[in-house]
């Protein structure tokens, strides 16, 4: 989801810094490519003022929660898939994970958000939410495995957070969730996330604690004068002439 104000802010940044390429990504982001390194702190300062945070394109963390239109505007939508996607993103952005995490929420089994090949993919149905995990659509192609079906959005978020926290605590660096799942098995994960409510709550509490520290826009600290100087060339010798 976006708004005219956000699009205007992006367009203004593109014009102001003469950015050569603007692309729409598969993860429903807008990519600005070809920015000069010395312009980066200023670009992010402007984007930050418009409410954007950094990380969705490159983080070893949550990338994006792709969503379909959902019950707001689609005749087949069973739940508010866009709303759920936004709430998950707002809660989980900025968390550090062993490898990138891509999620999606589809409002019905037609699966317009392609949730069935994501690290965490939620399919909404009339009676609730089907949580799938361990999908892949990169060098490997793999369908999600069914973690659980829950009745409420709150439970869907709880399971998603608990699953990601378990992944953060156990997986080897650079293993996407599907690789980690192949090593530990879905049953092992289910026992700790679905079947043990106390453990699930503890996982969520630890994720919460971590976010209190780490949910921070990395560029917010770098929009300073000193940081901007560091991104510029150290010296320019092109005008120098030998004596």
């Amino acid at each position, binding site marked *: 989801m976006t708004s005219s104000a956000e699009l205007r802010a992006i367009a203004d940044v593109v014009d102001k810094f003469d950015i050569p390429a603007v692309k729409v990504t598969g993860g429903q982001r807008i990519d600005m490519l070809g920015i000069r390194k010395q312009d980066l702190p200023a670009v992010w300062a402007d984007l930050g003022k418009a409410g954007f945070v950094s990380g969705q394109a490159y983080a070893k963390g949550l990338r994006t929660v792709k969503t379909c239109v959902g019950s707001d505007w689609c005749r087949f939508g069973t739940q508010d898939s866009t709303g759920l996607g936004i709430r998950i993103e707002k809660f989980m952005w900025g968390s550090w994970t062993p490898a990138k995490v891509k999620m999606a929420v589809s409002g019905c089994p037609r699966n317009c958000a392609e949730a069935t090949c994501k690290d965490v993919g939620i399919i909404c149905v009339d009676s609730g939410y089907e949580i799938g995990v361990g999908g892949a659509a990169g060098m490997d192609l793999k369908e999600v495995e069914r973690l659980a079906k829950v009745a409420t959005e709150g439970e869907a978020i709880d399971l998603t957070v608990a699953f990601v926290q378990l992944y953060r605590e156990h997986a080897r660096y650079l293993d996407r969730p599907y690789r980690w799942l192949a090593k530990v098995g879905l049953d092992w994960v289910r026992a700790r996330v679905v079947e043990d409510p106390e453990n699930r709550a503890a996982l969520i509490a630890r994720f919460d604690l971590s976010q209190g520290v780490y949910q921070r826009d990395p560029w917010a600290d770098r929009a300073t004068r000193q940081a901007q100087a560091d991104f510029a*060339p*150290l*010296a320019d*010798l092109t005008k120098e002439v*030998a004596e």
Partner: protein
Amino acid sequence: MSWLDIGALDNIPRRGARVVKTVHGCVAVFRTHDDRVFALDDRCPHKGGPLSEGIVHGHDVTCPLHGMVIGLADGLATGADKGAVATYAARVEGGRILLDAARLIRGTAA
């Protein structure tokens, strides 16, 4: 050699690099963990990637594009890889970085 003062050592983050613009293109100036300084063309011999944005480790740098590892002292690709990057004499004196200006400035004899 004619030495040119191009900045303070502390202007370069440790295990990092800053760039010096010259008529021949950019030169990457690296500062290693032990505060030694090396200057190389900012162009990986593989596909021209910006070595100044690579990961510095020991006295090597790994190109951020495809992972080629270049020795900072001799500009040569390490291991089984082939490739060479031009290097420029560099030293530190009194906290300032000095580069040999011979090949960096217009009009100097090579």
